[in-house]
């Protein structure tokens, strides 16, 4: 196998790297014996390759190691919603927990206290009078059925004056 000058020149890098087949390697060697220009080109390539090989490895900065060793924190930063909800909300926010408990207590306490006050009031003035008063009070509220309240108040009036309520009388 013989090579022309141009072809041999193209193969010099691969020859330098030992990446040529045996026949090509021998042919390049033959050409190098005869051709001073290719010998010089070969030497230049060799020096260039050697220089690149002598480059000191770039030293990664400390932050690089911190991130690469613990990429989990980046996952978290990338998807905050996913990991946050794994902790119960009441553990993360004790103030919210206290507020929620107070709200529940208040909601339960208000009707309880109001109910007790009403019952005391009813015993004091008599059930029928209480029903009558209460029906009148309620009639000022916008969404109540006033006709029905009128009936209730009327029945209470009848009882108060000693008559049986109409509803029972009709049945």
């Amino acid at each position, binding site marked *: 196998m013989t090579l022309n000058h141009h072809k041999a020149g193209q193969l010099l*890098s691969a020859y330098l790297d030992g990446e040529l087949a045996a026949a090509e390697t021998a042919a390049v060697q033959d050409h190098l014996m005869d051709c001073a220009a290719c010998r010089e080109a070969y030497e230049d390539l060799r020096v260039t390759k050697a220089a690149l090989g002598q480059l000191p490895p770039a030293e990664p900065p400390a932050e690089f190691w911190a991130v690469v060793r613990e990429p989990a924190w980046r996952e978290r930063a990338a998807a905050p919603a996913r990991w946050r909800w794994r902790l119960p909300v009441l553990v993360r926010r004790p103030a919210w927990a206290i507020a929620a408990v107070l709200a529940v207590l208040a909601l339960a306490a208000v009707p309880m206290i109001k109910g007790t006050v009403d019952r005391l009031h009813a015993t004091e003035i008599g059930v029928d009078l209480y029903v009558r008063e209460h029906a009148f009070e309620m009639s000022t509220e916008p969404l109540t059925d006033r006709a029905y309240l009128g009936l209730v108040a009327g029945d209470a009036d009848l009882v108060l004056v000693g008559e049986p309520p109409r509803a029972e009388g009709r049945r």
Partner: protein
Amino acid sequence: MGRPAAVVSMVRSDATQAASYTPEELARYEAIVQRYARHVYNVAYRMTGNEADARDLSQEAFLRVYRALRRVERDAPLESWLYRIVSNLYIDLLRKRPRQRVESLDAPLETARGELTRELPDVTANPEAIFERNQFDSTIQRALGLLSEELRMVVVLSDVEGFSYEEIAAMLRVPLGTVKSRLHRARQMLQQRLRPYLEARRRGWEE
């Protein structure tokens, strides 16, 4: 040279199932970091030429490894996949920054007082500097930066990291002949730019 299909398929990793890794899996990740982190960072640094981009790029590469950890076959050769990620990330980086201009060192520099010719550091005038590691490093790094990214990637993988043509072809998914011709062109261009510097350096050693 065939790569296991499982390794190739990992590229399409998007799942983030990281939270539930077992201690063994985390140990495996740590082993991958131990083995490849410096090399990946070094390739990224030689490609980008600056610390900030090299750090971002190699961190991103390892984040992908971390996410795809379950799909990484035990003892599978990771190099091919890992360096392909680095190469792709670098191309993405270039796409995101089209405004960044590559300046040729041969082009004259326009100034108010007229054109100035840029020169690589004239080490013959300052023999001490020949031995300075930083000078050597930055001169070669600058010459690397003037290559197209295709040529640079091949020459970095071959001459800086020492991979074979076959390995590089698998990493970059290009034919063997392409690796061969790119490498040759890259070395020729580097040699032209670096010749004065390298000759002066050699003379400095001989003195």
